């Protein structure tokens, strides 16, 4: 098997294991990274929502916000499946874009 194929299997295993990044924090009741809170949590933390933050925070509506899909059912089991799905989608798009950029950048260099 080629090196590239073997490494892709490794990435695939990571995608399948990715729900650990959801389940383990849930076990410890950890909600998210420091300084990445949503507006509700900010209001709870400091009692108000800073004016500029309010304006900028909802500037962009991402289609799969926080690795969820619209209409997703609640529960850790379903969340885990969607987490794997979004991992696969994210990996495919990220790898595809990096591949195209690398092909374009390297197009003039011949040989090994």
């Amino acid at each position, binding site marked *: 098997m080629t*090196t*590239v194929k*073997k*490494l*892709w299997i490794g*990435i695939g295993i*990571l*995608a399948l*294991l*990715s729900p650990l*990044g959801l389940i*383990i*924090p849930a076990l*410890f*009741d*950890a*909600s*998210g*990274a*420091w*300084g*990445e809170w949503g*507006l509700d949590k900010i209001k709870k933390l*400091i009692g108000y929502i*800073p*004016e*500029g*933050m*309010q304006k*900028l*925070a*909802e*500037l*962009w509506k*991402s*289609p*799969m*916000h*926080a*690795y969820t899909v619209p209409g997703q059912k609640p529960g850790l089991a379903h969340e885990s499946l969607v987490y794997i799905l*979004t*991992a696969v*989608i*994210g*990996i495919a*798009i*990220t*790898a595809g*874009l*990096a*591949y195209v*950029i*690398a*092909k374009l*950048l*390297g197009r*003039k*260099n*011949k040989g*090994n």
Partner: protein
Amino acid sequence: MHIPDGYLGPATYGTMFGVTLPFWAFASWKLSKTLKARQAPYLALGAAFSFVIMMFNIPVLGGTTGHATGTTLIAIILGPWAAIISVSVALIIQALLFGDGGITAIGANCFNMAVVGGLVGYGIYRLIATGSDAKSKRRLFAGGIAAYVSLNASALLAAVQLGIQPLIEKSSTGQPLYSPFPLSIAIPAMALEHVLLFGFVEAAVTALVLKYFQKNEPEMLG
């Protein structure tokens, strides 16, 4: 440390786009001179690895989480310029499709995690590993230390960018307009969890994958 939209004011996020752009340009120029088209699959793999490893959130005392970035590992195997491009691609896709990191903060997040992460990680690795055999223990040690310092440098930068907001972005009544936490809170909060836990996670991931390469793909370690 994916800074969301609304935490950095325009002066900061604008500056960070301005600072990051030349690094993207230089990295692209560098790759256009050195990268072979057949190496494209490895850049794709690097970007994919960075994307997925950042999904492994790890809880830390105090109810927050953090994660490794894979930047140092990619910089060691593919070089710092390829790492800057591939980790930036992962961060941009995370921001656009998954709202992980703000779109206004793409410059800042790419500077912290891809540019500084890649250059610091690569620099320290070279400093410790130069002259050692590709299969030596010293390479693993070098990768681990480099990854630890690199992630902490990224986290510290993010903390400073967040922490200066209450100083520079205030309403007429003195209320913070963006991230409300001063440097005296942001730096200890971010630095401590990365010094005590996430830095070691990044080091372990880096050393483990390097060990795999030493055993199975030593020719890729130069």
